[in-house]
């Protein structure tokens, strides 16, 4: 394995990436837009989780009292939406646009829910609880101690990891297939370059670009959201680096053979979408079936995000995340070996 040959391929790929302005720009804009978007949606202190429809809306009839319980009206995380008629409210309820519909002038507190809506069930429980007086006496409220983690702090590593996953799988896997199809790899086969040298160069080039992107996106997002990092930035950089290597090497396995961009695209989607949903990018798998959690362990992104969140939110040290690091290193070595073995330069 010759470092000079790897370096030649590494720099060539970097030049190509930095000059492809559209792809280069998108790598920064995409994660930044998602983070800002989610920050705006979920970052506000009083994010409204449940939508309650009320009819008849503004048109109050003379002498008719508003019967919505005050405790319910003042409830947190509830957004009230007025509808002129019951029919219109029911239609929204049917399509899950609202979670619960209330007749605001009914002394009997008539309400409607969509029986297939989980949010509707919870909104119903909140509504029923608001009808009970002295509910504080039935249960004793305790507030969790310690640092409270905002949703954006929990989500941020997930967004970075997701961007890293797409960048690694598509930026390596898809690109290598394209090179094979247009004959670039065939030209390289005519040189002394070995598959391991070429694939390593591709992997390190992509990880360099990913880390560069992460740093820029992090700094930009941090100016707005002031993320909390309770562990060390060094450990965080390491787990992202190892995660990136692992994801890139996975991309190389997918690109080891084949010349069909369409087929590769399908395979990449087949891998990336389950990985995105099962690796806790958007939501926790806590409480989900054991087999789902077991499948999630297959994906490098799961271990990357577990490690990153432990560092950011729990102040974990390198010793605390050594199992995640070892899994990511092992995945990288296994995938890179398989990719180099299976790799074909030409069609």
């Amino acid at each position, binding site marked *: 394995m010759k470092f000079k040959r790897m370096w*030649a391929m590494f720099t*060539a790929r970097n*030049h190509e990436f930095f000059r492809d302005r559209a792809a280069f720009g998108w790598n920064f804009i995409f994660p930044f837009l998602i983070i800002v978007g989610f920050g705006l949606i979920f970052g506000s202190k009083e994010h409204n989780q449940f939508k309650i429809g009320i009819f008849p809306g503004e048109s109050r009839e003379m002498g008719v009292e508003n019967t919505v319980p005050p405790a319910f009206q003042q409830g947190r995380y509830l957004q009230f939406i007025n509808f002129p008629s019951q029919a219109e409210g029911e239609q929204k309820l049917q399509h899950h646009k609202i979670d619960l519909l209330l007749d605001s002038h009914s002394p009997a507190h008539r309400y409607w829910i969509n029986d297939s809506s989980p949010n509707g069930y919870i909104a119903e429980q909140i509504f029923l609880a608001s009808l009970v007086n002295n509910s504080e006496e039935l249960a004793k409220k305790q507030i969790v101690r310690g640092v409270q983690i905002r949703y954006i702090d929990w989500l941020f590593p997930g967004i970075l990891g997701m961007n890293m996953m797409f960048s690694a799988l598509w930026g390596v896997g898809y690109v290598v297939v394209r090179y094979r199809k247009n004959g670039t790899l*065939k*030209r390289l086969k005519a040189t002394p370059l070995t598959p391991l040298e070429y694939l390593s160069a591709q992997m390190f080039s992509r990880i360099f670009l990913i880390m560069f992107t992460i740093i820029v996106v992090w700094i930009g997002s941090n100016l707005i959201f002031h993320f909390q990092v309770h562990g060390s930035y060094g450990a965080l950089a390491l787990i992202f680096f190892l995660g990136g290597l692992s994801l890139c090497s996975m991309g190389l396995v997918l690109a080891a053979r084949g010349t069909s961009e369409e087929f590769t695209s399908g395979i990449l989607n087949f891998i990336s979408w389950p990985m995105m949903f099962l690796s806790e990018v958007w939501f926790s798998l806590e409480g989900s079936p054991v087999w789902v959690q077991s499948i999630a362990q297959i994906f490098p992104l799961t271990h990357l995000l577990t490690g990153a969140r432990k560092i950011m939110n729990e102040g974990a040290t390198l010793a605390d995340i050594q199992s995640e690091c070892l899994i990511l290193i092992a995945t990288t070595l296994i995938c890179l070996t398989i990719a180099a073995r299976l790799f074909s330069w*030409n069609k």
Partner: protein
Amino acid sequence: MKKIIEVIHLSKVFGDNKAVSDASFSVTEGICFGLVGPNGAGKSTTMEIVEDIIGASSGEILYKGQPRSGSFREEIGIQFQYTSLLNFLSVTETLSSFHKLYQQPEDLGLLIERCDLAPILKRRNDQLSGGQLQRLLLALALINRPRLVFLDEPSTGLDPQSRRNLWEIVRHIKEEGKTIIMTTHSMEEAEYLCDEVAIMDSGSIIAWDTPVRLIRTHCQGSSILLPETAFKMKLDDLPFVWKRHDKTIVLETSQVHEGLNTLLNLDIDLTELAVHSPNLEDVFLSLTGKGLRD
């Protein structure tokens, strides 16, 4: 003379299609060897097997009398017929990248001068014309100072001027003592550049010799061409075997000089005279009975 490449009973099958069938030939060091034949004859497949780009179904390839080893790629240069380079790199960066892949690369300044790349060094690969790209690809094939250079249809798609320029570069490479193996479907190119030619058709080598000997062996005589209006006598009275092509009369003769003397004695107007000497295309027609560009 030492053989640099020996191809022994080479065959290649793609599914039901036998692309190369029991091909055998050898290439002497220092010559330009041409694999010629029509499109689909199996030239490029044979070439890629010899280059070790694709594997053979059966047969053996020897390089300097031995099976090809790890150093083979350090000692050969290849210009493919269809290839692509990284789009966003300039010519300089492309040369520099390939330069780093070899242990004993050529001096880049020399290479740039030889392949006339100086005016386009800053241009991006995807902004090059056909001729410029071919010159760059040729430079990449020479970047490791190869002993053996493979050129697969090097002048395909080039205008006449670019083609001539490329031929001159190839002649200079040959003068440096490098061995060249090239494929072409242009008989003119083969005759101009090649010392030895193997003619391929339907995956088989059907003839292999120097161009002169191939022509001498497979085509007798030359043709004298005159317009029909040049003859003031009955054509059947001519002491030649003749045939008509549109309004041109083609006279077959084994000796052009004697044939012309006969025509002068018959007081034939030779103002629009043309003489056609047989070439490799005629050899191919003679061997296969069909045109090269069918």
